């Protein structure tokens, strides 16, 4: 009589479909889980996603200059870039320079100076002298104030600012620029500084990663295999520098590495080097590498240790028992099993190293500066935040590329922190 339909939805005993009932029962749990995660989400949004978004925007943002010279740029766009612009361009430029307040015009002229150095002083000078000009035509009078107004190079340089977005900062970050016809060309030789620094940054980061691995692997192995009472002591030795201020450690290294420092003194005392040939271990790349290796060592040791801790000692025993020599057993059995730790430690050290700037700043001298130092320099000294953002974004992009490569070759699922 009352045959149940097999294909219909399953009902609970009170007649509500099972799926609906389940959803209702799970809803409270879902809300609770969401509320627990909410503060973290908000924190990540405010402190991570928004700033990175802001940085990416800033690196291409060119709107400000457009708010200072809106009309000038409007007319300027019609110019055929032959000879000098028309009287109309001069006129609106004259008016808009007059209208702009001191702070506004200062910021705008700084931006103009990035495209063609000389703009800033030209504007500053003009602002003072333009007050004498009462009526048009403006072209001749402006050129009379400063003959740079009659130089087409300055006018052509404006061409890269008329769009609200620009790639100028990115070009600058890799030693390229726009020429006066908005073609991408290399910076003149004496102004190429970033490519050289990029290469050095990768080289130093790579070397630091390799050195921390070479030094950290045996320590991590000992930590993971020694009896607890020894390994605890060793662990404290690894962590002790970690608890010491970065600056203190760097300064300690400065004392050791100077030409009249502890290390050189010992070498001279031991008669290994002559007094006049003391090694230059600081204020160059060598210093940066030595100190960064020491500072970043725990970041290599800890992931390695936590992975090695999970490698059963019986693997090595089994390999030996099956006839492999200790070296062979290590290479074929232990090492492959520690790759997740090598990857995690390597990636961690490399990422931290690539953006490092305090240590290179203090011990790097002129030769040991990394890209982070340029970012800090532009951020604090030249206030060229657009370039900072572009450099930072390139750094971010490079990291993503490395991560992608790593994922292709080794696989992200192989990263293990224990």
């Amino acid at each position, binding site marked *: 009589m009352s045959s149940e339909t097999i294909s219909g939805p399953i009902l609970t005993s009170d007649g509500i479909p099972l799926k609906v009932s389940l959803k209702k029962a799970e809803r409270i749990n879902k809300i609770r889980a969401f509320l627990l995660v909410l503060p973290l989400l908000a924190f990540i949004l405010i402190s991570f996603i928004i700033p990175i978004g802001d940085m990416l925007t800033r690196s291409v943002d060119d709107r400000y200059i457009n708010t200072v010279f809106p009309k000038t740029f409007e007319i300027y766009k019609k110019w055929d870039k032959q000879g000098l612009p028309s009287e109309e361009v001069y006129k609106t430029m004259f008016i808009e320079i007059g209208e702009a307040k001191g702070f506004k015009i200062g910021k705008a002229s700084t931006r103009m100076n990035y495209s063609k150095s000389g703009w800033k002083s030209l504007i500053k000078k003009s602002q003072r002298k333009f007050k004498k000009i009462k009526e048009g035509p403006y072209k001749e009078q402006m050129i009379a104030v400063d003959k740079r107004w009659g130089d087409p190079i300055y006018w052509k340089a404006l061409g890269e600012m008329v769009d609200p977005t620009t790639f100028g900062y990115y070009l600058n970050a890799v030693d390229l620029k726009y020429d006066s016809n908005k073609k991408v060309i290399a910076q003149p030789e004496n102004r190429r500084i970033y490519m050289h620094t990029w290469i050095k940054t990768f080289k130093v980061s790579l070397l630091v990663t390799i050195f921390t691995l070479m030094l950290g692997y045996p320590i991590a192995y000992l930590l993971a295999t020694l009896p607890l009472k020894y390994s605890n002591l060793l662990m404290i030795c690894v962590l002790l520098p970690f608890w010491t201020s970065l600056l203190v450690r760097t300064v300690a290294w400065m004392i050791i590495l100077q030409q009249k420092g502890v290390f050189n003194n010992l070498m001279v005392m031991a008669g290994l080097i002559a007094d006049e040939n003391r090694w230059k271990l600081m204020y160059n790349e060598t210093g940066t590498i030595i100190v960064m290796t020491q500072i970043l060592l725990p970041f290599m040791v800890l992931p390695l240790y936590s992975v090695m801790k999970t490698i059963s000692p019986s*693997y090595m*025993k*089994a390999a*030996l028992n*099956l006839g*492999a020599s200790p070296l*062979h057993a290590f290479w*074929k059995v232990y090492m492959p*099993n520690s790759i997740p730790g090598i990857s995690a430690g390597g990636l961690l050290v490399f990422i931290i190293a690539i953006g490092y700037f305090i240590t290179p700043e203090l011990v790097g001298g002129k030769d040991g500066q990394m890209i982070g130092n340029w970012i800090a320099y532009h951020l604090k000294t030249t206030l060229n935040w657009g370039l900072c953002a572009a450099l930072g974004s390139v750094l971010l992009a490079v990291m993503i590329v490395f991560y992608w490569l790593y994922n292709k070759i080794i696989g992200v699922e192989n990263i293990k922190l224990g």
Partner: protein
Amino acid sequence: MSGKDSFVKFENVDKSYDGEVLVVKGLNLDIPQGEFLTMLGPSGSGKTTTLMMLAGFETPTSGEIYLEGEPISSIPPYKRGIGMVFQNYALFPHMTVNENLAFPLEVRKLPKAEIDEKVHKALSMVELQDFGTRMPLQLSGGQQQRVALARALVFEPRLVLMDEPLGALDKKLREQMQYEIKHIHENIGITVVYVTHDQSEALTMSNRIAVFNDGKIQQISTPDVLYEKPDNSFVAQFIGENNQIKGKVKSVNGKNCVVVTDNGDEIVSLKVNVNSVGDNSLLSLRPERVWVNSDKGDYENSFEAKVEELIYLGDHVRTRVNVCGNNQFIVKIPNSSDHSDLKEGAKVKLSWKAEDTRALDFKA
């Protein structure tokens, strides 16, 4: 030296880890070729240490171990050519089953074709020929166990050691694997030294069992002798179920002696590990060697007992009685119509033979 009787020989081997406690004390052991010898004992008894010394992972503190007449203490483990199955299998997790099995052969630089053939043969032996390309973690515990076994045998070692290899398996699988290992041993005739703390495992598989306790071999014998004729109270207690009755030797009469219990009962028993009148003794008596209300007259011992508890176990009824001042005395009564009238609190007559009652040492 290298006769058939001493394929493996331990000679006065001592082992200490800390210079204070001897884990293995003056061990002497001969293992003939082709034997399945089990070292059985509680944890900390020195059996695993003994195995590790044989494998080469531990060095004897004094004494010497010989393999086919050659002293091997100074030979590193990777040159001993001894196969081993580890407690947690120790299969290399980053290699496939085939690669795991090929590992010992590649180390020995065998030609590729020969390696493939031997790997296939070894996998067939454990009936896993279709699993060669799997990773160890994709296998069940029992399959991993078999791979470990195949890997220990694939390079045709002189001797194979097994360190509680079945400890991680469930009961049913463990029993099945016991038979499989036993059959493989019988088929290829390899010498096996097996370590376990599970006495039923030892009884099932071994030619001989060495019972370890306190760093010493307590008794080494075939399973039946060990069960039926334990030499001392430790072995009697450790292997099988066992009734213990404390007492003092009253008189000695040839191979028998009379032991008086604390409540004055006199039990005629076999003199095994007591020396003279007045010695303390622990009598050992298997629960299945006690008869209830039997009217046959040839039992030396016959006492009245009170039934304390009946536990129905299907094929037999486990009966706890109070006899000779011991209320933990167990009798296994076959589930036959003879004894269907037993009730808790009933008085019964228990009888057993003197030869089944072994007067052993008693350590207070």
